[in-house]
Structures are given as structure tokens and as C-alpha cells.
């Protein structure tokens, strides 16, 4: 599974890196550091990724199933 952050939608609430600190972190402005990026998730990161996506007030995080 992959996690993607839509950089046009993220406004830096910081909920994702707060609920999933082992997976995500912030940049100097307070946005998640991987805006407009897609990252691969290990099996033990999926729960954290789901928590981050569901906690985003902007719905900027999507989880993409592998083909």
C-alpha cells in the first residue's frame, strides 16, 4: 500500500504527523514534509497511515492499494 499527500489540499493542520509520528513529520512551515509525494508503506505502517488519513481535516491524504 502507498500513502499520498495532495499538496494543494494540505494546509498544515498537523494532525497526521501528530497521530503517526513514526511515519510522518513536518517541514519548517508546519506542513507535512512529504507534500505532493507518494510513499511506500511497510505492513506495520498501515494502521498509522490509516489513522493519519482519517485524522486529516482537509482529506488531503489518500491510501492507494497496490495493484
Amino acid at each position, binding site marked *: 500500500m502507498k500513502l499520498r499527500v495532495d499538496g494543494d489540499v494540505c494546509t498544515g493542520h498537523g494532525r497526521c*504527523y501528530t497521530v503517526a509520528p513514526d511515519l510522518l513529520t513536518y517541514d519548517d512551515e*508546519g506542513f507535512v514534509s512529504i507534500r505532493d509525494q507518494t510513499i511506500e508503506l511497510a505492513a506495520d505502517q498501515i494502521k498509522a497511515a490509516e489513522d493519519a488519513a482519517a485524522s486529516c*481535516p482537509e482529506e488531503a491524504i489518500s491510501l492507494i492499494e497496490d495493484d
Partner: protein
Amino acid sequence: MSQPADRLSTDETTHGGCPVVHLDFSESKEAGCYWAQAAELREAAPAYYNDFGSGYWIFTRHDAVRDIYKTPELFSSESITPWEPEPAYRFIPTQIDPPEHVKYRKILNPWFSPKAVEEAEPRMRELCRGLVAEIAPRGECEFIGDLALLYPTAVFLSFVGVPVSEADRFVAFVDDFFAGFSGDPEKLPAMAAALQGIRDYWEAGLAERREDPAPRDADLASYLMHATFEDRLLTDTEVLDMLQVLVLAGLDTTRGQLGYMFRHLADHPEHRQRLIAEPELIPNAVEEALRYYTIIFGDGRKVTSDTEFYGVPLKKGEMVYGLVSGANRDPRHYERADEYLIDRERIHHMGFANGPHRCLGAHLARKEMQVVVSEWLTQIPDFEVATTEPLVERGGGAMMSMAALPLRWEA
């Protein structure tokens, strides 16, 4: 205040397919009344036309409020108070629309980033510990005046590089401003005087810094005077428009949130005990307080073109009001929406707005609240509300805030 628009006859009960109401959100009421009113409005209809002031639309449910926030090209921030579509002030970046908005935010964001807040946390804790240590032996306090206003003021002023000895002056400005912000015409002169007072303070501040060859360390006014916007320096007017709103937003809001959170803790010993046993839960408890006890009753925007929005015909120039406090407890969006769940998972809310105008000070506000809960419970684990009289809150139009919260405990 102008009268309702002439197309609305007095006996008309619907407008644009919406119920017509006449609601004044500037009145003080018993604490909690504004959330109850938001819930009533939300459950009875998704949208209203309020013929208060010059008239505006109210959207009560989560998805509509979210979409108002996330569609700035249709809903301009030129005015954020629907009872005052042509405000006398112009806050930057609050009232700036895309694409200029993000350029101002880029200048300010690093100053209020989670990194900046983390660096400040040790001194924030030390300051709070000292204030609570002064209060604890008394066995009682008036929480709003003794801590909820004083602490965020001191933190904010130190954050922007203003001597904390200026706190009383700024607190008076903030009180006068928000008295008029909710649309009470009698209080508009005091509001205007407060805005001028803040501006005069900073104009003198800019003059004093004018000859500095480089920005002063830890001094926001000085930083802004040297900041660039599209390869030019910010003008004095821009700097003043920024400093003015930062003072207002930074001092009052956290006071309001802290008041409701501490009334909740006073009334819920089981939650106090849970947070003492599991302090790692404090950030979650604060986040749920921001959802459940949202002080933002609603947020206004100005319609930029004729459109239909959630079935309501809107005309260019009309005002809309997204009922944030209703949206944050909308059962269509949240499970057990009308309960404060201290261990709620995956909390998200619009207490810091949504879309591009997400609260600049959100990271600082959360940390201030977390620090106060943690330092207070360490020194005062048991406490209760010290009155049987009803607690009073300021009208939601200016953001709810309790006038006073007397607390007592065994010293």
C-alpha cells in the same frame, strides 16, 4: 446597522427556499447556549436566511461549512463577519484571498510552526508552572482572569518579542475589540478605538526599528520589516495589518478554549483522573475539546459570483455564515458527535478553520492548552466550579468565551 434588504417583506417566512430567522449572535447568554442553538439550527434545517443586520445566509452542517472554507474563489474572506460586509479593518492574511494569501502565509508560517513551538516549550512550561504555583496555595481562583487570559498573553507576547509588561495594555485592546466584533452597534466605537490603539502601538514600534540594518533577534515586527513579498519589502501598511490581527487572534482565542476545557475538567473528575494517570492522552483531550467546545460559533465569507450552493441561490456580494460550532458536532459526520470522548480516535475538526485560512497559531494554541492542563493537574489534581450561579458566555458572533469561571480546591 442597515435594515433587512427590501426584497424581504416582513411576513415572508422563507427566502431562497430557506427558513427566515432573525437572530442576534452578539448577546451574552448562559454558557453553553450557543452550542445548543447551533445544534437546534443544524437539526431543523441545513440553511437559513438571517435578516439580522443587512441579512446573510447561514449554513449549519458539516459538509457545507467545509466547502465554504475550501472554495475561496467563490467565498471571499474580504469580510469574515456577515453582519458587517464592509469592515473598517483589513487583516492580513485573514482577509486576503488566493493567490496573494499564501505569499503572506509563507512569511508568517515559520514563526508559528510546530518546530518553533517545540523550541519554546520548555520556557512555556516554566512560565505556566510559576503561574499555577502562585494560584495553588489560595484554594480558589477566577480561572479566566487569573490564568486563561494571562498565560496565553504572556506566551504570545514573548513569542513575538514584546515585553510581557505590556500585557495589560493588550488585554484591554482585545476585550474592547471583541465586544464590538459580534455586531453590537453600541460597542463599535470601543472596537474602533482598540484597533487604533493597537495600530498606534505598532506604528511607534516600527518607527523605533526603522534604522536597524538587520532584523532583531526574536522580534516579529523587526522580522516583518525585513521580510520580502514578491521581491519587494512589505509596506508599513501591510506590516501593521499583520501585527494588528496577530495580537487579536493570539490573545483572545486560547482564553476562550481554556475556559471551556477547565469547566469540563472541573465537572468531570473521571477525566481529570484519566489525564493524571495517562498524561500522554492530554494532546488528544485538548484536540477533542477543540472539536466539542469550539469557540468559533461561525465564520463569514462574501460571495464572489452568482451561484447555487447546496440548493440555495446565492448572489454576488451576499454574505454567508458557516456554522462551525454546528458542523463540529454534526452527527452526519461524526460518530457520537454530541459527546466529549477523551480518547476519541482520529479526531479532526474545523475549530482552526479549514482550507487555506487554517489558523496560523494552531500549533501554538494546542501547545499552550496542553501545557496548562498538564501543569495545573500536577499541582491541583482536584477542583470544582465554585459557584451555583449560571456561568455567562460572550455572544458567539465574536467567538464564545466565558466571562468568569470561579474554581476552588483544597489547598
